């Protein structure tokens, strides 16, 4: 080695000695010297409470099957303070290691359903191997974290979505609501039930958050061990009255019915050309007639709740919100308002007898139409039914019989205004025109009467003369009200609840109870496994029906299914259980008719009431009745395959 090299090696040695010396010196300063205070609890310690949500309670069906639960999931999050370039690069790296498309990761990052204040969740349910690959190379993933999140999981994903409802971040709510929630202990990033059972039972499901009180130095960092830990409590479990087996059958039947309807001609437009039924949506509800508990509440169109988990993607959000999707978020059973058509005839049938207008045993000659004051009101398909009593009028669905009822009440109204509103009173007694009180909330509906007509005119017309003219309650108004057309609007839940009331009257010698429909059965503490709260059925009111009238109406409903002239005879042919039901076909201006079928069974000792309502789907016998048949089969013979929805029902009417 040359001397020059020796000198240079020596110089390297000196440099290295200097480097090590500075490390020693720095270590001394940091640990023993002036900067030692860095690590010591400083005198002006503040406290900070770190609050984290406790797991949300489970939602179970009546048999204890879990419908919604909190599960732990590993998520990859990306900080929001990265530059666009750095973010794209890190998403590229993540795409590589996670095997998820970069565009998907970016869509998750940008999803407007995620809190802008929290790191963005770009991937959920990340397998261990991938978590480790990221963790072991933290330096390659600036701003990326692997964290354990609690997410909502749905073992029966896709079923009962509208009824269960979704959970979302409180941040997504409007600022005013958020302020109110903050006062109740919610904080940014917390989840809250936004609809359905999740929202209705929020206070039970949420539990109380875990609060850890720590001391912090002026820079906000924790010093020492936590000084107080409030472990919080896990949310309570809510058991529903829903039977997921029946729910599944109902959703399946509804979907099959709707798809069948879309293959059939819309005969209301037959004169202008060939169009198919649109069948844009529908609903099925199954009630226990003895206490109002809901066994199934199906809606179509529907979607899987898992779309919301971890923030909904833009793609999915579009699928839920665009007009063509027909609002899958809407719970049509409680919030869809439909003209009930002939299913409403239960109301005038009872009113005619309750107010002594026309006896159930009396015959009325149905000539196929009723002319009055220059207008003619016709039967569907211009059928002439001949002499009909109440029973037969229901079985063959004579419109003229009930047009006459509407007209009779109108005439009585000229003498006795209160008695003249017998149909409206009866409707109110059966729960129409007001909310049912179900936990998830529902629409009011509307049963028109003169007072409503006047209020409507006042609200919509300006001059006194216009208001006066439009305030008049014409005979046709009462005639339409009697057959569930015109301004009548009911929710599927109101309608099925009215039939449930009638059904329990048949089992109780004419004394019917209108129950509050309900979804909750009991609430229990998941830790102690003790029941905290049990739902007691709440009556809304009572209806007393003359036993003879009741038997006549009941026989009329039975005839709908068992009499070859019954409107739903074809749809129920061969069903071993005796069912009472009523078809309905509501004409909607500019749209296809609403197909309805309301029923209860078994006819002698009713247990369940079932309704199907399908928008723009033709006759009640055509689509709604076969759907109800499938649902009934799922309850009475759960192990047999359901009867397929017929593609064309011969001679379908009403």
């Amino acid at each position, binding site marked *: 080695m040359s001397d020059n090299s020796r000198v240079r*090696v020596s110089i390297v040695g000196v440099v290295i000695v200097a480097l090590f010396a500075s490390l020693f010196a720095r270590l001394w300063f940091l640990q023993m010297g002036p900067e030692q205070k860095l690590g010591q609890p400083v005198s002006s310690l503040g406290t900070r409470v770190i609050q984290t949500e406790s797991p949300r309670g489970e939602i179970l069906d009546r048999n204890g099957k879990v419908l919604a639960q909190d599960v732990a999931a590993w998520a990859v999050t990306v900080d929001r303070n990265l530059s666009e370039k750095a973010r794209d690069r890190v998403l590229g*790296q993540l795409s590589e290691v996670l095997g998820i498309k970069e565009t998907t990761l970016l869509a998750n990052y940008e999803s407007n359903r995620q809190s802008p204040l929290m790191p963005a969740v770009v991937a959920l349910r990340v397998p261990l191997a991938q978590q480790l690959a990221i963790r072991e190379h933290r330096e390659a993933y600036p701003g990326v974290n692997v964290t354990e999140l609690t997410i909502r999981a749905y073992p029966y994903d896709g079923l009962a979505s509208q009824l269960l409802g979704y959970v979302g971040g409180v941040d997504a709510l409007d600022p005013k609501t958020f302020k109110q929630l903050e006062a109740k202990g919610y904080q940014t990033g917390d989840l809250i039930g936004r609809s359905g059972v999740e929202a209705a039972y929020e206070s039970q499901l949420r539990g109380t958050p875990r609060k850890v009180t720590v001391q912090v130095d002026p*820079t906000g*960092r*924790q010093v020492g061990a936590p000084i107080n830990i409030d472990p919080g409590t896990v949310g309570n479990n809510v058991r529903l009255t829903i039977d997921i087996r029946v729910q599944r059958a109902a959703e399946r039947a509804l979907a099959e019915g709707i798809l069948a309807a879309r293959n059939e001609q819309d005969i209301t437009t037959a004169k202008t050309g060939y169009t198919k039924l649109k069948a844009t949506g529908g609903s099925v509800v199954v009630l226990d007639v003895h206490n109002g508990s809901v066994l199934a509440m199906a809606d179509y169109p529907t979607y899987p709740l898992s779309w919301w988990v971890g923030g909904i993607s833009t793609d999915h959000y579009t699928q839920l919100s665009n007009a063509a999707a027909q609002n899958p978020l809407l719970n049509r059973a409680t919030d869809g308002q439909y003209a009930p058509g002939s299913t409403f005839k239960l109301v005038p049938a009872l009113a005619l007898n309750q107010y002594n207008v026309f006896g159930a045993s009396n015959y009325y000659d149905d000539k196929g139409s009723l002319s009055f004051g220059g207008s003619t009101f016709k039967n569907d398909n211009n059928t002439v039914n001949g002499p009909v009593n109440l029973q037969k009028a229901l079985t063959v669905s004579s419109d003229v019989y009930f047009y006459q009822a509407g007209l009779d009440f109108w005439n009585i109204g000229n003498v006795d205004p209160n008695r003249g509103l017998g149909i409206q009173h009866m409707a109110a007694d059966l729960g129409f025109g007001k909310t049912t009180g179900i936990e998830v909330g529902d629409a009011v509906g509307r049963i028109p009467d003169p007072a409503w007509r006047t209020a409507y005119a006042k609200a919509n017309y300006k001059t006194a003369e216009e208001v006066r003219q439009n305030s008049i309650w014409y005979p046709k108004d009462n005639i339409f009200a009697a057959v569930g057309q015109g301004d009548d609007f009911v929710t599927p839940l109101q309608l099925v609840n009215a039939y449930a009331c009638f059904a329990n009257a048949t089992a109780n010698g004419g004394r019917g109870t209108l129950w509050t429909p309900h979804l909750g059965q009991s609430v229990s503490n998941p830790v102690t496994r003790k029941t905290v709260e049990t739902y007691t059925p709440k009556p809304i009111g009572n209806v007393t029906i003359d036993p003879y009238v009741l038997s006549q109406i009941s026989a009329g409903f039975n005839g709908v299914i068992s009499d070859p002239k019954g409107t739903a005879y074809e749809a129920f042919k061969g069903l071993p259980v005796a069912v009472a039901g009523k078809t309905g076909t509501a004409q909607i201006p500019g749209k296809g008719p609403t197909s309805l079928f309301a029923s209860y069974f078994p006819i002698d000792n009713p247990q369940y009431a079932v309704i199907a309502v399908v928008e723009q789907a033709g006759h009640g016998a055509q689509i709604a009745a076969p759907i109800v048949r499938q649902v009934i089969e799922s309850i009475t013979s759960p192990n047999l395959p359901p009867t397929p929805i017929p593609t064309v029902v011969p001679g379908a009417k009403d």
Partner: protein
Amino acid sequence: MTTLAASPSRRRAASATSFLAHVDVALLALPLAISALGLVMIFDASRYETARGGLSRLYYVERQGAAVAIGVIAMTIVMAIDYRRIRDAWGLVYFAILPLLAGVVVLGRNHNGAQAWFQVGPFQFQPSEIAKIVVILAIAGYCHQHRGDLDAWRVAVAIGLAGLVMAIVYAQHDLGTMLVIMVCAAAVLVIAGLKPVHIVVLLLLGASLVGAAVVTGKVQAYQLDRLTNFANQSTSHLSAHDQTPTQLNLSASKAAISSGGFGGAGFGQGLRTKNGFVPEQHTDFIFTAVGEDLGFVGGAALLLLYSLLAWRLWRIALLSSDFFGTLVAIGVLAMFAIQIFENVGMTMGIMPITGIPLPFMSYGGSAVIASFVAVGLVRIEHARRFS
């Protein structure tokens, strides 16, 4: 060039007489001792991480243990190879690493990413760790070939050898490793006889390159954030919310070390280590676990071990009878010294934060294996001196 036919007899003779007889026991013992401490401290520093990740408490320790074992085996193999064959085959070694290095870049390019490792079963192999040693060998071999005759052209070739590897490593966004390679190459070149005028020119060139990179935005924002932050550390007026991740990293790191005091909190007792306050603590910030739990006594002892290691390497560089041997020893010495200084320095706030591991201590298989291989290379020069 040494022929293959001549070597077996020589090697047998060498292993019989000098393989063990001339082992520098200290040079072998020091990495093993530091690795043992490393395993213990990885256990300490990864407890929070493993608990949070639902992993076995020994997850990282086991994997690091396996890497140490592989490293020792690799070192032994390297020691058994006649160093003259390595010296003469530097070109082969150099060109073998290039496709590996470039491979990760190309694979990463598909997704706009820049992954710096290959997935080999459950392990990840990071070629840039080996690249550091290859650059040392290549420049040492080249300069040995042209010793005493290092004109401007040859200096340029030597710099080109390092520069190519540095460019690929830079493409993997591994700024830290690139700088380590630069320091190693510089150290070898200086000892190899770089003329003072060349040194001045190169310094000016390097400074203007760094300036250009920052001005044109070729340095990522987070990299710049890390580089500038160590110069601006008075963040105490900021709440945790207002600090950049780097500032938080740095203050957490300093607070952990500082809280250790003279004797430390005791193994497993340090609150900041126990509660996972220091990010990446079992990898890049392992020194903070030593500082907090073992205090000044532990930290100084570890630095002393490193000093001894540096001293043994420096001694071999000075005593080596072979020019190549000197150059390799200096390269390895520079590599360890800059990594130790940078890593420990960053945890204490006197160097910018980069992703450079602490040799033999930080969790990371490729780095551990590469470090042992580096020691194996140096040990041969020392042994040969006596043969």
